[in-house]
């Protein structure tokens, strides 16, 4: 799923516009798999899988694979529809310098949920 985020985000002109002032690198952590995503002017320009020795990033979102998979379902189960729902139930941690994340919350929520679109398309094709 994570490898598809860049393509899905960059193909969504409205989403790229929403993130036009975003210039940061953030990290998604799935179990012990670390991935850094570089964002420039709303486009995901680089996706770098870990492991890393000295990763340089602003913030990271960390959850188990099971949680991410539920979050990325086209219609996630109750309690898995939003990153804040997962933070509330302590199934996800959002850590680091949260300013880019909070200042661009609509953007990052849609970036993180982008694989849902893909899952929905795949489900329809089956």
């Amino acid at each position: 799923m994570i490898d598809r985020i860049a393509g899905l985000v960059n193909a969504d002109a409205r989403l790229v516009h929403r993130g036009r002032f975003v210039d940061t690198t953030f990290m998604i952590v799935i179990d012990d798999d670390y991935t850094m995503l570089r964002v420039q002017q709303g486009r995901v320009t680089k996706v770098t899988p870990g492991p890393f020795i000295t990763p340089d990033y602003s913030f990271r979102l960390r959850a188990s694979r099971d949680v991410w998979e539920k979050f990325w379902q086209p219609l996630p189960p109750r309690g898995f529809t939003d990153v804040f729902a997962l933070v509330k139930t302590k199934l996800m941690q959002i850590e680091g310098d949260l300013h880019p994340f909070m200042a661009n919350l609509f953007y990052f929520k849609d970036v993180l949920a982008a694989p849902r679109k893909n899952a929905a398309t795949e489900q329809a094709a089956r």
Partner: protein
Amino acid sequence: MSPHFEHITGRYLQLNLLGKPHRLYVEEAGHGIPLLCLHTAGADTRQYRGLMNDERVTATYRVIAFDMPWHGKSSPPAGWQEQEYQLTAPDYVQVILDVAAALELDRPVVMGCSIGGRIVLHLAYQHPTRFRALIGLESAPYAEAYYDLSWLNRPDVHGGMVCAGVISGLVSPTAPEHGRWETLWHYMQSGPGVFKGDLYFYTTADGDIRDKLGQIDVKQCPLFLLTGEYDYSCTVEAMLGVAERTGAPATVMQGLGHFPMSEDPEKFVGYLLPVLEKIRAL
């Protein structure tokens, strides 16, 4: 062609609240049993637009909603710039009592959502004889903050966007796009620090009513609870806990979230009508 006006009328009510003169924006529609509606934190009366435009409701209920001081078209009191807005339980109760009295409402039904759903529990505990019935939407007796609330009001983050961004996940994922985005627009328009100020009541010991639930007497004042299945702030489980402690009937609203009346008014009214019918029969 004559203009097509909705049946909602909006006026400004002048009254003293909490020791200061206020100019409160009040909307209403319909005739019959007064139904006083309380909006959510950081929002305003527009959330009840769908309800006020539904003749199934307004045929027998006089639906009234007011923008809380600092919210919507109710400006803060003079001198607001010298203070930080903070809603407390005693103030919230007093505002509701004073507005109901100023409007000369005879034992109204009060329906509130989220912070409004919380305060109806306080009304049920403190003032059961003053109301015909109470309806708690997304009623939880307590909610712990699960993110740092200071993000909601700081100069280097757009307040409207962060407030709406935070609550966006509370809208049901199945809500119609129009309802979802109108609900979010209301949050985007809130004044600086108002949502955060409301959450003081919602997330601290000030508004915590867990230890009083057992003393709420629903025979004295019937209480009805309705919660959207996707609400992760005031959860279904929290509502069922209130129902168990008070004996109030509880309904889980499928396909709805934290803002049932504005995210999907049509679906919400479907759940509300049986409750209004029961109240009419009291």
